[in-house]
């Protein structure tokens, strides 16, 4: 063992870092970004859950209860008609609707009062937040009267059920995440590898066009993505009996659109990178926003208000929403059309951008 030789190797490695400014920026910037992202998003409580209240109570108690639904967990909105309120929940525009019938005050006195809660049960953390807030308000409103024990909550699940587990609610997002990981890793390496070996120039000395190269790569990677989705979805169903009430082919279509978009974006990064190390740095840059800002683990309602608009710029948000709606709510293509259009546009723009970038690099 020779200390001088060991130090020679260390010195060489540090010099390599020093010569690669982008990598140097990554070494400093990435941990900072991670800490900020985790701190702001995981520090958040569920808030502003859109909840509709239909108070038909002829007596005063209903209003008293509603006025106690304070705090920022629920974004309470009054609705006149329980049918319309239920339709809003069914359409995914609200998470819950509360219905207090005409005889609420009277029934409360005779200790037989019922509050109907119409719930979208596809997200257990949201269900927990809604029910928790209602129970707390009841305690506050009727504390003196011992009234909280004098009524029952009748839960009516539009989607999911009280049996919907946490794993059911995040499985759709995890499946999309698995696709994101693999497609990004592959596509981010693919162009930079061809560039470094002089292969890109060799390819373009034939009539091959950049867009043809991009589409060729995307088609091959899509085969990989479909195979992988089959494994992940199969494992989720067989090993964990994850709930799927909707169309499995539609879930595949969502994953494929999402995969193609990620491949395009990965190839843009790959074309922009000067070496494989720079290309790989792109992976966490995509991964962290996709993990934290998109409702995969925690509902979008748990993201602090200031960061919430960022979610709409992360494609994973739409993939997660579509997978969630298809698998847990059983929605069809028409119901997730916005997600499909956004993911389709993402795929088209990303592929074209990749072709333009590769042309510039060649």
């Amino acid at each position, binding site marked *: 063992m020779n200390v001088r030789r060991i130090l020679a190797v260390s010195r060489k490695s540090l010099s390599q870092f020093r010569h690669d400014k982008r990598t140097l920026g990554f070494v400093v910037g990435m941990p900072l970004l991670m800490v900020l992202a985790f701190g702001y998003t995981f520090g958040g409580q569920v808030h502003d859950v859109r909840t509709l209240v239909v108070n038909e109570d002829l007596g005063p108690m209903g209003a008293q209860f509603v006025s106690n639904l304070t705090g920022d967990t629920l974004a309470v909105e009054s609705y006149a008609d329980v049918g319309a309120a239920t339709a809003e929940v069914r359409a995914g525009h609200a998470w819950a609707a509360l219905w207090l019938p005409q005889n609420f005050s009277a029934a409360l006195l005779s200790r037989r009062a019922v509050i109907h809660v119409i719930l979208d049960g596809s997200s257990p953390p949201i269900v927990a937040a809604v029910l928790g807030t209602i129970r707390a308000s009841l305690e506050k409103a009727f504390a003196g009267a011992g009234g909280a024990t004098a009524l029952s909550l009748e839960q009516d699940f539009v989607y999911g059920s009280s049996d919907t587990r946490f794993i059911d609610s995040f499985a759709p997002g995890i499946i999309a995440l698995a696709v994101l990981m693999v497609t990004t890793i592959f596509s981010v390496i693919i162009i930079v590898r061809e560039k470094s*070996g*002089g*292969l890109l120039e*060799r*390819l*373009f*000395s*034939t009539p*091959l066009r950049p867009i043809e190269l991009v589409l060729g790569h995307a088609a091959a990677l899509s085969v990989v993505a479909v195979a992988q989705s089959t494994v992940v979805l199969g494992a989720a169903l067989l090993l964990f009996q994850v709930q799927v009430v909707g169309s499995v082919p539609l879930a595949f279509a969502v994953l494929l659109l999402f995969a193609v978009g990620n491949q395009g974006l990965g190839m843009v990064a790959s074309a922009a990178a000067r070496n494989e190390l720079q290309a790989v740095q792109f992976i966490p840059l995509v991964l962290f926003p996709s993990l934290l800002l998109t409702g995969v683990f925690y509902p979008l309602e748990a993201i602090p208000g200031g960061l919430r608009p960022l979610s709409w710029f992360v494609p994973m948000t739409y993939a997660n929403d579509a997978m969630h709606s298809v698998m847990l709510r059983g929605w069809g293509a028409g119901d997730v059309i916005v997600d499909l259009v956004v993911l389709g546009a993402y795929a088209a723009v990303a592929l074209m951008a990749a072709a333009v970038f590769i042309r510039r690099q060649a």
Partner: protein
Amino acid sequence: MPRLPPEKVPAIVCKGLSKRFGPVEALRDLALLVPRGVTFGLLGPNGAGKTTSIRLWLGLAAPSGGTAYVLGKALPPREVLPRIGYMPQDVAVYADLTVEENLALFGRLVGMDEEAIDRRTDDVLRLVDIAERRHEIVSNLSGGMKRRTSLAAALLHDPDLLLLDEPTVGVDPELRAAFWDFFRDLTRRGKTVLITTHYMEEAARCDLVALLHRGRLLAHGDPDAVKARTAADNLDDAFLALVRAEKGAPP
């Protein structure tokens, strides 16, 4: 250009072809004619503009000024790319594919059908003498064999014009001799072989040569004529004399 029968159209005609990279003039006002059916040596030290010229002719970069016609087509010569074979300086074949898979890829990209690819693969691999390695993964091959694979890929579609960028660098003398025999076979069949090199003794084997220095054409013609112009015994000395004359001349 006057209408010529296709086989008489010059392989390459350059008119004032220039390329700048920022402040660097990689190629300045190049006027050059490469006729068909010859071996043409593009000579010069590193940085003379040899690779830049090839990249421009293939449309891999856009000229900053002037133009060129490749097999009769103005730059970028997309339509005639299937008639050009290009062997870059780097061994540009996929290391993680077999020899045969590499050839099939490039054959398909220039529009060959599967039957022709299969037949020609046999032929060209025999020509470059690696027929028995057809199914081998390229990364398992020696450096010389990788270069042969790269040359085979450039030859597969029997191109009319071969652009070979330093094809003999790092190639052992035996293989180098074999390459040259082979180039002469091609020109006998009417093909044009343009090679770049900085080995002057190798350039003497070409029918025609052009000497480049810092992006400028110093001389061109047949090797003997170039030597005679400078009263030199060999191309090395001729080149040095031309560079000295260039430096001495007023700008």
